[in-house]
């Protein structure tokens, strides 16, 4: 059964089994490889995408469930928070190997959209599901604070 998905603002028809995790549809069927496979069991956050604006682990989400939802991946995420995060990430040289970073960015953007000026505790709570085997956690936290400050300063 073909499934119509809305991905990054475009409708994409896929013919995958409705139980296939969204992650595999994004990566293998649609070729959107910015979303990463880390664990496949909701433990690492590398596969984080936004579904109707909410950060979701795409490895746990059967594609049939999101037929009528707006899916946003790292390739399509946009807006002032995204620009602020991009600038802060670059200025702080956050990534090490980079593997986890698309998931980190998707979670960070969602956090800033929920809490524009997050505290350390907010950041730790929001980002605790995004593991980084290079342990860039301190730079991630600092960069989120930078992005929050940039977002709150009128241009």
């Amino acid at each position, binding site marked *: 059964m073909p499934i119509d998905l809305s991905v990054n603002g475009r409708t994409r028809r896929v013919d995958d089994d409705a139980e296939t995790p969204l992650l595999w549809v994004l990566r293998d069927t649609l070729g959107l490889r910015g979303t990463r496979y880390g664990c496949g069991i909701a433990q690492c956050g590398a596969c984080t995408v936004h579904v109707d604006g909410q950060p979701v682990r795409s490895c746990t989400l059967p594609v049939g469930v999101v037929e009528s939802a707006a899916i946003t991946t790292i390739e399509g995420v946009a807006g002032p928070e995204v620009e602020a995060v991009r600038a802060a990430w670059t200025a702080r040289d956050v990534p090490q190997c980079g593997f986890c970073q698309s998931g980190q960015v998707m979670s960070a953007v969602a956090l800033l959209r*929920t809490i524009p000026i997050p505290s350390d505790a907010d950041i730790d*709570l929001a980002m605790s599901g995004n593991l980084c085997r290079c342990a860039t956690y301190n730079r991630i936290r600092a960069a989120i604070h930078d992005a929050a400050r940039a977002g709150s300063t009128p241009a």
Partner: protein
Amino acid sequence: MSTRRRRRPRIGCLSLIAIVGAALLLALAVLLRPRSLPQPTALAVGAPAAAPRTALRSPASFMAIADPRARSIALFREAGRVIQHPRCLNCHPRTDRPTQTDAMRPHMPWVSRGAGEAVLPCATCHHDRNVEAAGVPGNPGWQLAPSEMAWQGQSLGDICRQLIDPARSHMTRAELLDHMATDDLVGWAWHPGGERTPAPGTQAQFGALIDAWLSTGAQCPA
């Protein structure tokens, strides 16, 4: 005489060194002798360990207890096998953080009631059903019990008194029965998916025990 006396000990000393040397060589030879590696052996087949009782007793089977108060407590103790099962306790934690698995270890990733819910809600990973591909359990009502309904670390008697205290359970007795007997999220405990151990019996049998306990005066163990 004196020369002979001097020579004797020298001979004794040499032979002593030779004996010790031989003993050392012998010990080395014994220690370094070629030996075969330990081989796998079949485990002795004994009686299998008693499997945990997975059925629930029916309310009728308690009728032999003549004293209604004792019967009510016995009914609750049987229902307690469900209430204190990890499938139920994991979401009735004593802190703001759920536990998971039969070992009831802290939930990974770190999720937390309150402030944590806004930024890392259950729905980040849990959906309206168990997703077997990822091994993640789910239900449309996936959530923690309120903190006043913390069960972990409480005795069965304390849990019982908490259940019948509307200030903490936020339920009338009719609502409590409905919750236990028909609530779909409670029912997940019998269909947990993956390799999770289901709660004993069925939700209908559990509901029948709670019903019988309530109608015998909802007595609590000490």
